[in-house]
């Protein structure tokens, strides 16, 4: 059944290329993505058979798809995100919308492939498949500065991919049968020095994708300039490719090199967390604010994984999911605001609580998740991750903990500027509430609180991955 996660989006994407009518394109995409969601929910609670097929026999590369807890939780996140995005942005006008949606579905297929691939070459293939449509989406449908920004984004990620490809080929050369399978890679015959080289090659690719300070500057620009539907995919799901890569490949393949770099990477991540949080305080563009806030959150997840403590990794595993849900909610709200007010400047907003109280309440709800209030999903993950940092080094945890206060500052600034105060002109001119988008937000918010009060299903789902990672 795993192959369906690829087939459904790809086939739908191809079909969409021929559906020129906008009124038909959106429902098609929504239906397909909902079908994938149903499949993902089923897969989350059931054992799923691996899929294996010959692919490139001359290279010894096989088309292997496997799903453990880590894969499943990200498949679930991807499958929730896509329909949510399609529904929430159904009203948005894009030229040639069918192609726009088609490219998004190709990206979805790529993401699914990345999370399921059990073969390194296949992993690389899907990694690129996920990225290429995004380049087109940004450069064709993006904002004013889209060309320059996409170029930057492209160069960055292309460089990263290149490093990874070299790393993969390098490892392949050192396996017994020149295989690309995970198992073969683990048993590759490398000297310690070579391991560190290979570690570095992979790490750079993943670090750019997350991104980790100071490789992050492509991200706020790209998030700002991309059409928000694309930003949503990138921010909710695609950044997880980097973290996923670290958990799936880097940690199992090079445990010693990993442990040797714990302090450097954790330090860099923590600096990044605070750096991004400070910058978020001074943002007036709501999309840039969310972007920097997200950099801080991803940095924390990376730091937690690199602590190599069970508790820190457990936190990161479930935060992969929770962060996706929360940031998706924020992006949907940002998109509604931009679409309905025509601006992203928060200074020109204000008084949303009077004009559209429901949307303001939803904003407050997701703001609480963004600052990891207890009983929201983010608290569980962040609590465990900070705990992992504390076990590694209490001072680092205390230092990183400052971001807990900074997050409150920038998030409440946003709430205050957007929701409170007297009604501004732009807010006053907002049309009727976007009911479809609000419904999506309500469902996401329910997920936020349900998994915040009772996170056990997420722990159960990721238990096998955690066990495997810790066994090494």
């Amino acid at each position, binding site marked *: 059944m795993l192959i369906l996660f690829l087939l459904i989006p790809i086939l739908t994407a191809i079909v969409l290329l021929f559906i020129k009518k906008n009124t038909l394109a959106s429902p098609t995409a929504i239906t397909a993505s909902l079908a994938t969601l149903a499949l993902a929910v089923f897969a989350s609670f059931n054992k799923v058979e691996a899929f294996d097929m010959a692919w*490139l026999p*001359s*290279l010894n590369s096989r088309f292997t798809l496997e799903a453990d807890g880590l894969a499943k939780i990200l498949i679930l996140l991807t499958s929730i995100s896509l329909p949510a995005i399609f529904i929430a942005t159904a009203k948005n006008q894009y030229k040639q919308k069918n192609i726009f949606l088609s490219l998004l579905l190709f990206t979805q297929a790529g993401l699914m492939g990345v999370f399921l691939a059990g073969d390194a*070459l296949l992993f690389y293939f899907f990694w690129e498949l996920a990225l*290429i449509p995004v*380049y087109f989406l940004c*450069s064709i449908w993006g904002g004013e500065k889209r*060309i320059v920004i*996409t*170029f*930057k984004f*492209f*160069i960055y990620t292309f460089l990263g991919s290149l490093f990874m*490809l070299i790393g993969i*080929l390098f490892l*392949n*050369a*050192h396996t017994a049968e020149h295989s690309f399978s995970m198992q073969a890679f683990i048993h590759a015959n490398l000297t310690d020095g*070579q391991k560190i080289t290979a570690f570095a090659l992979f790490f750079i690719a993943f670090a750019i994708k997350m991104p980790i300070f*100071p490789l992050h*500057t*492509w991200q706020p620009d790209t998030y700002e300039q991309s059409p928000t539907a694309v930003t949503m995919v990138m921010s909710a799901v695609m950044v997880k490719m980097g973290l996923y890569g670290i958990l799936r490949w880097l940690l199992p393949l090079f445990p010693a090199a990993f442990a040797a770099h714990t302090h450097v990477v954790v330090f860099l991540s923590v600096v990044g967390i605070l*750096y991004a949080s*400070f*910058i978020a*305080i*001074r*943002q007036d563009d709501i999309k840039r604010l969310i972007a920097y806030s997200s950099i801080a959150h991803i940095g924390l997840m990376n730091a937690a994984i690199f602590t190599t403590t*069970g*508790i820190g990794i*457990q936190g990161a595993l479930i935060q992969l999911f929770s962060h996706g849900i929360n940031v998706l909610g924020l992006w949907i709200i940002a998109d509604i605001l931009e679409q309905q007010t025509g601006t992203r400047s928060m200074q020109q907003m204000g008084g949303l609580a*009077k004009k559209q*109280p429901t949307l303001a309440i939803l904003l407050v709800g997701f703001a609480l998740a963004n600052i990891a*209030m*207890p*009983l929201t999903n983010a608290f569980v993950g962040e*609590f*465990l991750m*900070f*705990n992992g940092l*504390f*076990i590694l080094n*209490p001072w680092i945890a205390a230092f990183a*903990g*400052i971001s*807990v*206060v900074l997050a*409150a*500052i920038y998030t*409440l600034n946003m709430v*205050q500027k957007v*929701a*409170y*105060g007297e009604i501004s002109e732009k807010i006053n001119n907002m049309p009727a509430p976007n009911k479809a988008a609000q419904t999506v937000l309500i469902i996401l918010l329910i997920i936020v609180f349900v998994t915040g*009060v*009772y*996170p*056990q299903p997420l*722990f159960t789902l990721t238990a096998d991955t*955690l066990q495997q990672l810790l066994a090494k």
Partner: protein
Amino acid sequence: MALMKILVAFIILWPLAGFLLNGLGRNYWSKKVIAYKATGYIVASFIASIFAFLYVQDHGAVTVHYFDFIHTASLTIPFDFKVDALSSLFLLVITGVGSLIHLYSKAYMQEESSPHYARYFAYLNLFIFSMLLLVLGDNYIIMFMGWEGVGLCSYLLIGYWFSNGSYNYAAKKAFIMNRIGDLGFLLAIFWLIAKLGTVSYNEVLTAESLAKLSNADITGITLLLFVGAMGKSAQIPLFTWLPDAMAGPTPVSALIHAATMVTAGIYMITRSNILFSHSEITQNIVAIIGISTALLAATIAIKQNDIKKVLAYSTVSQLGYMFLGLGVGAYSGAVFHVITHAFFKALLFLGAGSVIHALHHEQDIRKMGGLKSKLPITHITFLIGCIAIAGVPPFSGFFSKDEILAAAFEKNKIYWVLGLVGAAMTAFYMFRLYATTFLGKFRGSNEQEAHLHESPLAMTLPLIILAILSAVGGAIGIPEIMGGHHWLASQLSTIVSTPHEASLTVSTEWILMGVSVAIVATSLLIALSKYSKQTDEEPSSAIGKFFYHKWYIDELYQKAIIEPLNEFSLFLKEFIEKKVIDGAVNGTGKLVQFSARKVRLIQNGQAGYYILFMVVGIITLFLIWFNDIYILRFIHTLTQK
């Protein structure tokens, strides 16, 4: 057990149900339905609390388990609740005073339109829910949930009138200052987990656990917990949010910013008293911060002219006394003061609300005066509150404050002397407030005077009940030298590790009491005689200005912390990010672009780059697919060198 499981679930879930129903149905229900529903849920919770309290009296402490909040290989945090002597007392205060304040709010908030009226009650219900989580939790994580939850409700209620920018600012300030404290609390929790692997009270607060902790651990953990308490209970240096929190509706000030939430820090330390008692350093710091806060806030309260501000600083000051009590090991004394303070401070705030209500939102006491005859019930109940807080026997505040002062005397006589100075100031500023507001002639406008009216029953009934409790509430802790049994101390004896044993001789104790009563009485009479005819002008002396401007502490924080941080953020954003990091990136990008032009791969526009990419991609794939041997051989040769 099964019974308690249901009972505790009811106690907690009723307020939550009220929040959800009123929050979601805010556009559908009439104000009457909204108010009765919200109040009804809290009253129901109160009645269930009485049963829980009685059950604990008969059967001892009970722990109920619902499910595991976090259950991983290395850490289990259960969703457990504990009803024991301490939490059941807090339950009664929270739901009891809470019920009265809900009832009062029904009338006080009448001017609001019904969706906002519902929003108000929903927040209030959510607050009670969070507060109950805080005191009922059986481990520090559940306490922390409630801890941040009450902070959120406080934020929402301070900023209840959200159109007003300065109110929003006050709300944000409260939340952020609390978050600083919360960070300390969190770090303490991590520390406990790192050392003990658990956060449950019955596993942490035991002799075995203490044996596993070094002295440095205990001091570190308790200091961090105290940082949390500083934030929530408004102690130096994290106290400046509380006076600003008066932007919220007055019943909120009574419930959250006087009677319940701000005493959470005292609850937390009392709960962890075993740890605190094992760290001399922390205890001294708690006592010093406590008495300093008590005095600092009292000096400010003397000069304020806003009726709510005086009460707010008075709250900060009284909380300082409670921390003094905790610091000198008088845990049950501190809890005693929490309870009596809940009665008289809620009473005073609600009384102030009644005055503000009658004067159509006038809060400046210089424009009041002579309200004695116009608002008879408010007047008499307010007077009882003033007597109680000043510490005049036999009103409740006398007993609780005296217990703290006696313990302070034993520990260090300087604490006692300073405590007395604070008590004198308390009597002074409270009776300055009372006299300026209720005595003399009315100084407001004629129009205001014509509309002066006593508040409706929904408002006066809570005043009367609280006045009675303020008057006789001391009965729960009458000391033995007066022939009492000190019911409260014996209640808490199972929880407080070293019950405060009076080693003072009977005669010393009587003398201490006598001195304090004499001082309080003198200062009270001075205030009465001075302010029954005149009001304070703008202060002219340097020290008066200093107190009037709150020691310029807000200005100090602004200049020393907020502005530098803002500048730093701007520096990162405008210089480091744009010029340094992105500059380097763009420089590299331009170089690539430049060399690309040089080799004339791309002539114009960006489309070229995609072609470049596609070409590179296709070539790569092509090489892999059809000529993998070549590539691999190439790499082999590379790696074999």
